[in-house]
């Protein structure tokens, strides 16, 4: 009548007492590999669906063009756009514009990372700073950054610093907010462990606080980047110097809609490339390092 499993409950006579032996050798990537295998056939199908969708879109565009619904200067054909693109690559203007825009973006974005981190960490670690400065940051989030351009031109003059400022204002809020969340999400145990190891204030920021913020920062940096990119394009469009926004304006001035469309494609392509290549890698790295539960 009594169940046979009863003896097994006594401590000390279990069959596998050592925890090491019961655990498989961990090495990151085994789970990812399994996911990749699982996805291999699904990925092909997905690519096929995407290709069909975009080819259909392209065909529709071509069809609208061929039916002359709108005149060609309002809606150029796909091949016109392609030729404009090739022309402006050949004369080097697109490369020059991309270089100029990227330079501004990198400067504005870098400054906003620095300032955003400082603001966010201050808000995250001090209640009074959070109440005051934090509320200001949140409030300014509802202000489109392009509205800073008139002031920026007055402050910085008619040069690219005004554009950099608008780019900075576009992304600093998102980065500050995620840094604040990052600090607040750090388990108190991490700080206590650092304290018991005798860490100074500087050491606990450098070795514990900053690395612990990385998972939430990865999100904020990505968001900040896309805000910076949009703000930059808006500013360049209004305030004319060399850059992708300037080329858009040039296309309008020359009544060259195919150039405008070509530049729009370039803007999308750069945005997508940074997102899918750079930030996707950052996210994968965060997942592997910080574990799935952190993401």
């Amino acid at each position, binding site marked *: 009548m009594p169940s046979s499993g009863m003896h097994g409950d006594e*401590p000390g006579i*279990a069959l596998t007492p050592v925890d090491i032996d019961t655990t498989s050798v961990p090495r990151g990537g085994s789970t990812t590999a399994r996911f990749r295998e699982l996805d291999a056939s699904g990925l092909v199908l997905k690519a096929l669906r995407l290709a069909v969708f975009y080819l259909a879109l392209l065909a529709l565009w071509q069809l609208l063009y061929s039916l002359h619904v709108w005149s060609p200067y309002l809606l150029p054909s796909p091949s016109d756009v392609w030729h404009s693109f090739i022309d402006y690559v050949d004369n080097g203007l697109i490369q020059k514009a991309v270089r100029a825009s990227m330079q501004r973006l990198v400067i504005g974005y870098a400054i906003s990372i620095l300032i955003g981190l400082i603001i966010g960490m201050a808000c995250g670690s001090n209640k009074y700073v959070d109440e005051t400065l934090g509320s200001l940051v949140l409030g300014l989030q509802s202000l489109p950054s392009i509205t800073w351009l008139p002031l920026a031109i007055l402050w910085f003059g008619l040069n690219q610093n005004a554009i950099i400022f608008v780019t900075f204002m576009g992304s600093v809020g998102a980065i500050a907010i995620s840094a604040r969340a990052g600090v607040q999400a750090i388990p108190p145990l991490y700080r*206590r462990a650092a304290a018991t190891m005798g860490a100074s204030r500087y050491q606990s920021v450098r070795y514990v606080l900053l690395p612990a913020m990385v998972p939430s920062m990865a999100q904020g940096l990505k968001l900040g980047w896309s805000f910076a990119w949009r703000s930059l394009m808006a500013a360049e469009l209004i305030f004319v110097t060399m850059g992708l926004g300037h080329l858009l304006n040039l296309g309008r001035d020359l009544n060259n809609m195919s150039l405008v469309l070509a530049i729009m494609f370039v803007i999308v392509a750069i945005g997508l490339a940074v997102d899918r290549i750079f930030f996707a890698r950052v996210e994968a790295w965060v997942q592997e390092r910080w574990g799935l539960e952190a993401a």
Partner: protein
Amino acid sequence: MASETFDQETRLPPKPKFEAPAERMAAGGELMALRGVTRHFRTRRHDTLAIDRISLSVNEGEFVCIVGPSGCGKSTLLNIVAGLDHPTGGEALFDGRLIDRPGRERIVVFQEPALYPWLNVRANVELGLKIAGIGRSERKRLADRYISLVNLRRFEKAYIHELSGGMKQRAQLARALAVEPRMLLMDEPFAALDAQTRDVLQQELQEITSRLKTTVIFVTHNVREAVILADRVVVMTPAPGKLKTEIAIPLPRPRGPDSHAVVDLAARVRTELQHDIYAAQSAEDSYAI
């Protein structure tokens, strides 16, 4: 609050035949002393006395276990020794000096594995050494030594989320030992582990600390664990936390979990605790209602 799991024995604990004096097992002099340490927690509505006038002395090389039901302030006591908390009355001395801040000479091993997930096992162990300002080659040597000591050599490249609970606590122990502290403060480090892993780690901790002659204060609610590990068991009563009694454990090492001497002494400690446990449990029950 985790549910209290005491290893229940089927027979009743025998009545204690003698009252052993709280004799000092270790040869070294006094390393840590608490003199009338009291800790109030004041909030707007409550004024809680967590621990009340506790005096305790720990000698160099001694392994002291503090047992008591949950909520008796034993973790608060440990935090005060660690310098992570401060007494509101009395004084806590380490090596004759007032404890006013945390420091690596009194390192804590926490109940939850306080390891950093962005670092692998080796980097976690080396971090404490890095903070201590120890150079690279010396860091490597010490990390090698203590990672081997806790049997984690095969897993030194693994990240924390890839480890089992037992391995995490091994890693935390290695990190604490690597800075070669003068005192190890362990706050229920095995409480969240399964029984088998706990048995193994208790044996290993015994072996390591007697080999290194580490001074340890080990907080637990597990009576058998206390008797296996300690030179001296300190029993605390709850609400407010007071020292009830000290029981010397003069048993030869290594001590197995099921040896008669261990079981007998555990029964004695349990008798000391029993009344207070019931008191605490009925208090908790009324709390739940």
